[in-house]
């Protein structure tokens, strides 16, 4: 019974997530990412996500990267729990003053070389919340930022695209 369920449930979605949907842009992105990872870095990239005061919208889309449609682990990209294991810090939110220290400490806990991706309009310039006395604004005001990914929130596809760009840059 269970076995049947498993087979029935697993058959279609997991086998053909990228090609069958006819999502050409995504398939293209996927192959680029694959080449870039292998050619330039030749290893996997570990990402630590940090919510520095987001509305949680960005987190929803970052979480979606792990679903069967985007399955970012295929590309050697993975999310890790500790900043000590991370190459990339993915920051979201308008960096609230209450999160500024936590952001800095998380960055400092990461080994070099390291890259920072400001993800979503808030992390880029404070977005809708810029100017509030409770927020710092851009993540770049607290730590050096290597790449920005626009959107509110950015779609999973554009986050993947951003990571491709980062791979290109980090290998230089």
């Amino acid at each position, binding site marked *: 019974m269970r076995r049947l369920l*498993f087979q029935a449930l697993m058959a279609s979605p997991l086998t053909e997530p990228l090609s069958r949907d006819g999502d050409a842009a995504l398939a293209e992105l996927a192959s680029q990412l694959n080449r870039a990872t292998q050619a330039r870095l030749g290893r996997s990239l570990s990402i630590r996500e940090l919510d520095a005061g987001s509305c949680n919208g960005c987190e929803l889309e970052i979480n979606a990267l792990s679903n069967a449609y985007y399955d970012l682990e295929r590309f050697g990209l993975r999310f890790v729990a500790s900043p000590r294991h991370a190459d990339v810090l993915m920051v979201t939110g308008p960096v609230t003053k209450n999160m500024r*220290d936590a952001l800095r400490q*998380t960055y400092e806990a990461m080994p070099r070389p390291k890259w920072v991706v400001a993800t979503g309009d808030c992390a880029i310039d404070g977005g*809708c919340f810029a*100017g509030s*006395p409770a927020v710092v604004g851009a993540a770049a005001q607290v730590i050096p930022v290597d790449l920005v990914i626009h959107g*509110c*929130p950015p779609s999973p596809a554009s986050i993947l695209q951003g990571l491709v760009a980062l791979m290109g840059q980090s290998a230089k």
Partner: protein
Amino acid sequence: MRELAALTGRQVERHHPWPRMLVSTDRWQDAINGLVEGRWTLSGLWGDVGVVHMALMAGSDLSVLSLPCLDGHFPSVGRLHAPAARLERTISDLFGLVPLGAIDTRPWLDHGNWGLRYPLGTSQDGAAPEPYPFLSAEGEGIHQVPVGPVHAGIIEPGHFRFHANGETIVRLEARLGYTHKGIEGLMRGADLDRASKLAGRVSGDSTVAYAIAFARASEAALMMEAPDRAQWLRALMAELERLANHLGDIGAICNDASFSLMLAHCAILRERVLRAADACFGHRLMRDCVMPGGVTRDLDLAGVSSLKLLVTEVRTRFPSLVALYDNTTSLQDRTVATGALKAGLALTFGAGGYVGRASGRDFDARRALAYPPYDQLSFEVSVFQEGDVNARVWVRIREVEQSLSLIDQILGGLPDGPIHAPLSVQAGEGMALVEGFRGDILVWLRLNGEGRVERCHLRDPSWFQWPLLEAAIEGNIVADFPLCNKSFNCSYSGCDL
């Protein structure tokens, strides 16, 4: 019968759709007594310049009481009625108004990092951050486990302080406020367009529900209604949002019980919903699609058929996932009897959403207030009594089924006509209570005569759910915390504002 009619005061003009009274300290005290006796439920408590407001609910009736704070203080509600405690601490932090007699006077949102105090009242220079004294637990062998604000997963920041005896949790206390963005400060002076965008960014997973609540409160203040078609489209978006969130939650809860297969499959269905929303409304989370006066995107025929396909697909696939959940003993072993919340507490706190309905609190704003178009749609509100993680999963399962049915009904009955009505410019106050996926969201606002917001307060359902997580976790093991926490799935950003 109007229970709340006993709370008399001078009725404020141009406050809709429920009355607002300026009351004396005596009436304020009566209101507190009524809360303690369980005659009504606290729906909100917020500050204003020199005034505090309290929203009360009895059945489907609401009322707002306003108490002027002549000397900068007001009789504490939290002293006798615990659900008000953190709301009061917030009022103190933002406005500098003091709840007299309050037991817990620690700051809540103000961590000493803003560089100023009382940002919404008479602001003063800020003091340096001070250590935060957590509530204690004493006894042999008790140790503390501090967690956060940065957590291991891709979730929002907050601090949890556990007191544990071995594996068993003796006391949990949450400290939030890390994502405080000063939204209510930004609201001041914002025009409706900007204010609505801010409201839609209070809690990203509830962007539609917040935008609807804000729009309905604005429309109440302007004494107008959005056109029929807009109301129906709003409900359509709200149900899609509920569907996506519940599917995501069911998967994530099972994943926290180490059953990742459920997450994989639920995430696929969730992604389907988001893609359909994108195709129909131009945004995966349907952000900024609801505005005061109506909606910004109409649904075309292609949209209707893609949603019909979506409903069919989820209907086909979801039952086997439910069966999988129900038949996997190792999973049930984790969810049944874990993190049980007592019915009495859910009632006292007026816990909304799946947290309340899994612990016997039979309330759903869509049914109780029957705001359009829910007055013309049929649906069931499922209530469970056990209050454990399993019950919170089942409420979500039933609500997925109900949302599918509601989407069907909406697609079948969607009226023709305009999707937006012009907004007038006039002063007034409005309020709305809207059922988001997490529970009832309250928005209260005052508009000035220039089409701008003078004061807007947004009360997330999680205000009355976070403290219950602390109660439900007691006696459970530390390792079950992620599971319990996910089953509550309270919003951080929604409460931190």
